[in-house]
């Protein structure tokens, strides 16, 4: 009960923040009713997906300060679990998604245990490595379609299939992911005020001090890593149903891992709104660049250059990201 109360309690934010958040929420709800292109629709769905990836990353990466560059492996496990179970056994999404989470979290415990003996850059590099190894494995594994991947070819699009999450129109996907987004946001609002949330911030600050306060630092990191993983895996499962054609390259590549971390850092690692702000900035840029520039020969890959520029500017100007800039500005204004 108390957890629920904390999840819906945003009272420690300024009124202006809540007004903006409320207005955006209304916009999100009515967006499909307004006229828009299918391009805008798919951009919005991607925005919600990446916000959720970022929220997951933010637990261990933001609050816990452990820079994780291997989140794509859990997108892959979630997506493949749902796709394989759907294609082979016609399993409902609501069954395959929790199984995907279970598999992802199990894998996260297996690799998290040794990984969290590492610190700083070594940890970041090790997460990249595990993710790449898993991707290579999927590329040669025939059961999951190897490098060609898996295609979900629905027999019948009508009526909308909420059991398997197979829809003809994106609007259904939109509302499903919006619901996940709201649940994710409430969870994160609870998480940041929870015992684990506090313990992680203490760990980020100074591990020796955290341990002296009775915190099992290694175990707290592993637990949080599992929470981050669960977030990513759920959206990975959704990704499979939404895209309907998954292959190792576009679910588990390094780009995705980096994009997830980058968005959270850009928006503000360790803050509730950070991942959402980051996704709100980067996803439209990513979509438009792909649409307008990606097709032109010689300009492919320019998105990577732009991400790199953003990360350099952020790390030089304000490590706490856009939200950090806003807070700094407010502090200055408050002093005058």
């Amino acid at each position, binding site marked *: 009960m*108390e957890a629920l109360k*904390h999840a819906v309690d945003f009272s420690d934010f300024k009124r202006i923040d809540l007004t903006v958040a409320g207005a955006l929420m209304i916009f999100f709800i009515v967006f499909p009713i307004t006229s828009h292109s299918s391009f805008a629709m798919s951009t919005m769905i991607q925005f919600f997906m990446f916000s959720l990836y970022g929220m997951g990353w933010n637990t261990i990466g933001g609050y816990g300060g452990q820079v994780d560059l291997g989140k794509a492996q859990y997108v892959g496990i979630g997506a493949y679990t749902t796709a394989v179970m759907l294609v082979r056994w016609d399993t409902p999404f609501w069954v395959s998604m929790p199984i995907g989470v279970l598999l992802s979290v199990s894998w996260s415990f297996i690799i998290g245990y040794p990984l969290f003996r590492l610190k700083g850059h070594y940890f970041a590099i090790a997460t990249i490595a595990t993710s790449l190894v898993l991707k290579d494995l999927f590329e040669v594994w025939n059961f999951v379609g190897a490098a060609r991947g898996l295609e979900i070819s629905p027999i019948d699009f009508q009526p909308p299939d909420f059991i398997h999450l197979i829809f003809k129109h994106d609007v259904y996907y939109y509302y499903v992911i919006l619901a996940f987004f709201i649940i994710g946001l409430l969870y994160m609002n609870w998480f940041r*005020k*929870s*015992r684990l949330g*506090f*313990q992680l*911030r*203490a760990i*980020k*600050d*100074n591990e*020796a*001090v*955290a*341990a*002296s*306060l*009775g*915190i*099992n*630092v290694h175990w707290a990191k592993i637990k949080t890593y599992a929470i981050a993983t669960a977030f990513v895996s759920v959206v990975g499962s959704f990704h499979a149903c939404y895209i309907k054609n998954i292959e190792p390259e576009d679910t588990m590549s390094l780009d995705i891992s980096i994009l997830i971390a980058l968005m959270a850092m850009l928006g503000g690692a*360790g803050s509730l709104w950070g991942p959402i702000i980051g996704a709100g900035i980067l996803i439209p840029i990513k979509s438009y660049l792909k649409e307008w520039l990606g097709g032109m020969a010689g300009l492919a890959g320019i998105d990577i250059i732009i991400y790199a520029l953003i990360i350099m500017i952020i790390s030089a100007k304000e490590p706490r990201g856009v939200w950090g800039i806003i807070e700094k500005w407010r502090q200055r204004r408050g002093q005058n």
Partner: protein
Amino acid sequence: MKLLEITNLTKTFGGLTANDNISFAVDSAEILGLIGPNGAGKTTLFNCISGHLPITSGRIVFDGADITALSSYATARRGMARTFQVYAAAGDLTVLENVMVGCFMHTRRRSQAERRARRIVAQFNLTPMADSQVRQLPVAAQKRVTMATAIGTRPKLLLLDEVAAGLNPSEINEITDFINHIHHQMGISVILIEHVMALVMNISRRVVVLNYGQKIAEGRPDEIIKNPNVIQAYLGRRYAAAQEG
């Protein structure tokens, strides 16, 4: 009743022996001073007792249980809290949040942790700065935050590592009052590493002296200041003379 019993504790780093065969005990409800020149192995001894460092040989018994092999979070859960000499104060945590981290050791519930933390913050005269970030506070207040956070874990034994270093005389008086409060009102035993002799000799019931990793003396403060070994190794003739005069 012995609260902490250290038997033949030795800690080596490669060829360097930081703590050499040290034995002493702390009674429940006592303040024990731990003094000695820089590099004598005082902080290393704290790290060994609290489980931050594994010891090379010896035995540590705390509150009736052998804790020799336990790591620091486990000793903390058994009731041993400590402060750090160099406190890299909590990045973005406020004073209240910091103390709450300590209080969260005994409860999962935020409301409970917050209620207790507010009480402790008030006891340490920190209420006016409860919502300030710790690193923005003056040193004296930061030291009080580290003590308050440790108290949040409800310890039986508190290890204080140079809490008076860098403070002016009136701040030292203030921190002395807090240590006395922790000891007398809360019934917590204290081991105190300190270079400020006015503080150690004033409030310790007994004092242990280390030099080059070895225990060279143990006794009541008035015995320690007359001990020729201690005078030679640490206190110096002038201090001894001043006490005599």
